[in-house]
């Protein structure tokens, strides 16, 4: 689980056309509250490491940024920030070093490949992209290599652009980047993402190509592939939120703290432009419904990868309705199949092929009915299932 600290809420210096926060940004009737003591009090109460998030986290004034980093270092020994990178200046890098800040930069590629991360005009977008690339380069030269989040879409992974993206990732590897997180573009009704989405075959092709690239670049890791493989082996102790049984009313993977110190949910589930607060109690209505609902009606009934995928992120659900499975189901399914085949060829038994899979499903759904959850690792060990 991670705590996302969003000091300025959705406020951002750029306007990505596919940003899932567009809805809440436009629906906002008033500026979000901002209280440094409020944020610190909320973080103290949660008592967990946090990542500075946005919107754009570097819009926070420098003194407050330093206060937050100082608190994070003192309490947890480490800090993290997710940024689009365009606002990183030399003094930020100094802060990152002094306060042990792990930096994540969201960037979809070089130059035109990043055009969907629109900054208001072609010139400003080009400048923002170049500054992010420069900051990324500088961080690497300073020995603070950031991780990079790349969202795959028609602007950076369709046709010949995929080769350009791969070339850019090769360069990132050459300068020291070791972790790249891949996201599939999420289509929302409240932004301009529709025409940007790759179709399922294109998404799968892009991911397979990048997986091939990973094998050629020692030291570089796409988190996605490792996590999916681990899920098939029921090693989900550190998997990211999309593979966990996320509840859009109380998102498990992401817990937010807003600028006034109030708790919030993961913004990916705010489809109607309303940033609902987290419900006090987690529920498993979605997973139970998906397990019982035929696939032709948006469910997952009968899918052998259900235990690993659980319908994936509710923020990427079909039709923007969190009750349905992920719109990227076909892509995840294809990748799971690839990994499953490879594991079997290597003599390992993935949980999807286990004769005890049904028993695991029955146990987990029974837990969900009771309002409880359990990791696959613990569940399979408890039931003596060999895949773990």
């Amino acid at each position, binding site marked *: 689980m991670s705590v996302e600290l969003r000091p300025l809420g959705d406020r951002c210096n750029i306007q990505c056309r596919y940003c899932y926060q567009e809805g809440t940004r436009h629906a906002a009737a008033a500026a979000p509250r901002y209280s440094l003591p409020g944020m610190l009090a909320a973080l103290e109460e949660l008592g967990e490491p946090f990542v500075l998030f946005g919107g754009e986290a570097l819009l926070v004034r420098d003194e407050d940024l330093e206060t937050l980093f100082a608190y994070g270092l003192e309490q947890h020994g480490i800090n993290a920030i997710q940024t689009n990178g365009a606002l990183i200046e030399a003094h930020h890098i100094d802060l990152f070093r002094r306060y042990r800040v792990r930096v994540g930069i969201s960037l979809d590629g070089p130059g035109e490949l990043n*055009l969907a991360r629109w900054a208001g005009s072609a010139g400003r977008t080009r400048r923002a992209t170049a*500054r992010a690339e420069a900051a990324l380069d500088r961080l690497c030269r300073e020995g603070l290599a950031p991780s990079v989040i790349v969202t795959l879409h028609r602007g950076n992974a369709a046709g010949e652009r995929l080769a350009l993206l791969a070339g850019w990732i090769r360069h990132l590897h050459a300068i020291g980047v070791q972790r790249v997180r891949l996201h599939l573009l999420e289509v929302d009704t409240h932004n301009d993402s529709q025409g940007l989405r790759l179709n399922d075959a294109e998404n799968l092709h892009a991911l397979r190509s990048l997986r091939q690239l990973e094998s050629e670049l020692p030291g570089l890791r796409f988190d996605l592939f490792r996590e999916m493989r681990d899920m098939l082996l029921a090693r989900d102790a550190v998997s990211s939120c999309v593979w966990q049984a996320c509840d859009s009313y109380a998102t498990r993977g992401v817990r937010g703290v807003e600028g006034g110190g109030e708790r919030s949910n993961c913004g990916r589930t705010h489809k109607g432009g309303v940033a*609902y607060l987290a419900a006090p109690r*987690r*529920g498993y*209505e979605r997973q139970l*419904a998906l397990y019982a609902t035929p696939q032709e009606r948006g469910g997952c009934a009968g899918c052998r990868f259900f235990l690993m995928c659980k319908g994936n992120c509710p923020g990427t659900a079909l039709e923007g309705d969190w*009750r349905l499975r992920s719109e990227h189901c076909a892509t995840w399914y294809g990748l799971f199949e690839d990994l499953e085949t490879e594991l079997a060829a290597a003599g390992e038994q993935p949980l999807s092929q286990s004769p005890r899979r049904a028993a695991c499903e029955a146990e987990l759904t029974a837990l969900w009915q009771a309002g*409880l959850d359990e990791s696959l690792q613990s569940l399979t060990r408890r039931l003596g299932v060999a895949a773990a």
Partner: protein
Amino acid sequence: MSLRLLRLPLAIGAPAPRLQLAAPRLAWAGRVMQATWTPRFEAVRAALLAVELEQLAQGAISASAVDCLAGDVSALTALLRPRELAAIPLGAYAAAPPDSADPAAVVLNYRFALVRRERLPLLVEALAADDLERLLQLAAFPACCRAALVRALAAGEDLPLAIHAHGAASAAGPASWDSPAFSAAGAASGSGPASAASSALAAGPAAAVNAAASPIEANALLQPLGIAAVAHVPCSAACTASQALGCERLERGSAAGHAQAMAHLRAALAWPASYSQRNGIAEVQTAALRLVQESARREPQLTYRWHPAAAASIAAGGGADAAVADRTADTGSASPIAAGHSAGVAAIAADTDLDNPAAADYGFASLHAWRMRQAAVVWEQSRRLRGGGSFIDLACGDGYLLQLVEAETRRLSVFGLDRSEAQIARAQRRLPHRSLCLRHGDIAGLAAQAPAGGYDFALLRPEDLLPLPEPERRHSLRTVFGAARQVLAYASDQALRRHGSLGGLLTAAGLAATRTPAAADISAEVQPLP
């Protein structure tokens, strides 16, 4: 005290096939909403309970019901005793408290039927006979609502979330879902405005938008929270009998000293709201909060929107989309790759600018490395450049760095020089408005091209001077420093590898940084070595 009023004096487990009594999970739309409306809801619930007990005491209704935590039974008794009301236990159920994060924190809830003592035998008799119709009659359900609820429970509907929404949604017309019970209920009530409903239903078979200009008191979507003027389950949003009872209840509340709470209730009931049921999950959404509850029914998919402000538009043929237009407002962006527009898609498909094969000629292993270095130079020097002036890149290649420099501030005029004619052609395509300032040539010709007063900045690649014979190199440096007030220098990857650092490269080229560069710097302002 935690009492939940729900005027359904039915024993737990019967007669409904599945009587869902646990309070729905709730999420507020922001801290302000929560802070504002939590105490208001509490005040409304207390006022409605007081009104209900008074109506029972006065004989206006014969029976009602409350859910009550075990610890609150004595408090409930204290409320009932002075009014000479009796409580009959209808059962108990365990549920997590709505405000508890701990799934194991289950508490016991009791359900009591409330009744005037002299009418106790009637209630007991109806309960013993499992006579739902009679029980609802004692609870003062209007005939149409009574009939609708009996049919709904027989059809296996859940309580309370789904049933309330179905009841409310029936105003939109019987074709909006396939429940026989409620199809009949909508028709039986005779209150659904058919013409408006038909335009609303044009949105699709599974979507219905309330098109009735019904009074706010009929909005029953928040009833599961105990926030509704109508205490019974209305058969439709347009049920005139329910509306009358709702209005009467609000007036009773105000007259009994709860005017403020009733005003809050009116405001909440006027919120736009939607109910949807899909794959066994029912959800109510408003701008202030949302509720979720499992539902035994998996079919049909049902969507119902309550939007008083849009009712007139829909009735005039605006269609269902008009009802939700405020939630899908156009963002009005001018991005060239705005989705769904053919021009945008075409822009995406067009060639990128990432096709220059000359990176190796400039000392880089790839175009990405070259581009990133140029971006890094501008990043390092941006504070200096933002002051404006004139800037010349002495090995401008395809003009990418100049384009980035130009983007830093409009106060900068950029110029480019390069020994490659092909690269200058590319630069002119990139910066057509600067095509006359982009020249093919080398440093020797710099002086002839300089504007009056010279350049404010010249960007030099010292490695380009290294192959030159010493006299020519010195002449070139004199030319550069004679033409520009500040000379900046940066290194390619190849040069850095060869010379170990920027400082090493500068020394080899007869230059020195004006200030010692940081270890990670790849550019610096330079001056000639003496």
